[in-house]
């Protein structure tokens, strides 16, 4: 009796071990498939033009050519483009946080006519394909003489154009007890003071998640800078990357990949240090960034 169950136990342990082994094999294989393109990009960014076209390809370039990075930053305006992107990201992230948290406050803690109906409208705008508003918005900004300025790609953020963040912040504000507001109002606080002194300080985690998600989205935004910016020096990095592709003279792949690494590095670094919050944000809201 005991030997039988012991044998069974052993058998079970063995199948468990095999199962574990297979799971790890799949997971590691998948991780290699995901990571290899990045390694390859990095490897290409350190090659000389000759090494780029070498067959069979080398994974570890010898000799390595780190000067590609200098060329991208000095000979091409990529340093300028990275700064432009940083500027756009900072300005629009501040705008999004302020305008979306204000709206979220109004939709979650104040009573006013048509509030709930308007909130449904707001939810509907989250699903609206941007193409429907693209052309008239382009014409509006063109008439205002704002082509080749940063207004078209930063200003809408100050008016809660990305309704998703209103939704996200509202979800969080709803978890804060209303008693706090009432107590503050008893002491003579205005709506704005309640918002600024009580709700915002209590919502730092949610504001952080929103800022990270929005900044990430803005950093890689492509269509808007593509149509609004066409002077070389004013491009954002996402659009500037494309200029390394050259159909007539052939693409300088090693420079393009160096630029790509420089473009991805800040995002990966921020992700590395904040992934716990970002992953939480995605899991809570159930939405990709």
């Amino acid at each position, binding site marked *: 009796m005991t030997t039988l169950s012991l044998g069974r136990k052993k058998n079970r342990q063995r199948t468990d071990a095999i199962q574990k082994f297979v799971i790890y094999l799949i997971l590691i294989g998948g991780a290699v*498939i995901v990571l290899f393109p990045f390694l390859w990009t990095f490897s290409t960014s350190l090659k000389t033009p000759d090494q780029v076209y070498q067959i069979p390809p080398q994974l570890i370039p010898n000799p390595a050519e780190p000067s590609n990075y200098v060329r991208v930053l000095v000979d091409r305006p990529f340093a300028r483009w990275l700064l432009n992107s940083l500027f756009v990201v900072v300005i629009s992230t501040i705008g999004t946080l302020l305008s979306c948290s204000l709206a979220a406050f109004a939709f979650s803690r104040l009573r006013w006519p048509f509030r709930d109906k308007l909130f449904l409208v707001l939810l509907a705008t989250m699903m609206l394909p941007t193409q429907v508003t693209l052309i008239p918005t382009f014409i509006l900004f063109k008439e205002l003489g704002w082509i080749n300025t940063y207004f078209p790609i930063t200003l809408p953020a100050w008016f809660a154009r990305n309704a998703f963040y209103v939704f996200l912040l509202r979800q969080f504000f709803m978890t804060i007890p209303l008693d706090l507001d009432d107590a503050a109002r008893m002491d003579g606080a205005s709506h704005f003071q309640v918002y600024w002194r009580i709700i915002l300080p209590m919502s730092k985690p949610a504001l952080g998640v929103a800022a990270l998600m929005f900044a990430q989205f803005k950093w*890689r935004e492509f269509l808007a800078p593509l149509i609004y910016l066409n002077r070389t020096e004013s491009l954002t990095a996402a659009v500037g990357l494309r200029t390394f592709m050259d159909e007539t003279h052939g693409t300088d792949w090693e420079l393009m990949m160096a630029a790509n690494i420089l473009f991805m590095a800040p995002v990966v670094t921020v992700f590395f240090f904040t992934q716990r919050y970002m992953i939480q944000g995605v899991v809570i809201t159930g*939405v990709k960034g």
Partner: protein
Amino acid sequence: MAAPWIFGFVFFIAGPMIASLYLSMTRWDLFTPPRFLGLDNFHALLTDDNTFWLSFRVTTLYAVFSVPIQIAVGLALAQLLNQKIRLLGMFRSVYYLPSVLSGVSIAIMFRWIFGTQYGLLNGALKLLGIEPVSWLGDPDIVLLSFILMSVWGSGANMLIYLGALQSVPTELYEAAEVDGAGSFRKFFKITVPMITPVIFFTLINGIIISLQEFQTPFILTEGGPANASLFIVLYLYRHAFQWFKMGYASAIAWVIFFYVLVLSVLVLRSSKAWVYYEGSLKGRGE
């Protein structure tokens, strides 16, 4: 306090929508005044424009394959990670990484990887003795390349499912084990039904996103070869910003909007048959 949003809604959403609807009924090149055409643009688009239908087909095919595969791969990864596994956090971050970077940089990376002569993928195939494939140059293959690339980024779905899997009550599994259910049965009879609301969400979201695909074809192929990767939004972009046919482009925008709407409503309708909300369980059980 909702004033900024209301202002933004009026000037950046509602106003442009009305303007866009009007423009879709005109011919306008930005330089001469718009000329009212009624529904002529839509008529031409739907009955006369073969390129439009080609782009419609390309976009639909891409959505039909990439969205379900991304869901399946994301679910499989989440299920694998939802166990006692060492380095769980590391795997999760690695799989999610492409979603953090999605867009231009990924497209540029894959343009290099998909290269016929010097690309990494063909290099790897050569080791297996397989002839080089023209991933981006062959009209019959190019869409497959796009789908492969989208599957590579399935980590976004994985993360959402992982959150959902962790909220499935363990009692359900224990009860099933008592009844002698194997892990396969448990997955399809408990796990999948319990997380259908999240699958439903990723399905709708995936459809909306894939129908609006623009940067990837713009960078990888510019719609080629022979328009075999001409996604609808890329076609719209050509009309609006290369040929300055603002009226016709607006009509395309409304067709995309309508298509997204119809598909979303269809999925929503179907959801009654397959999406399972916990509220209904409670209603029955107590």
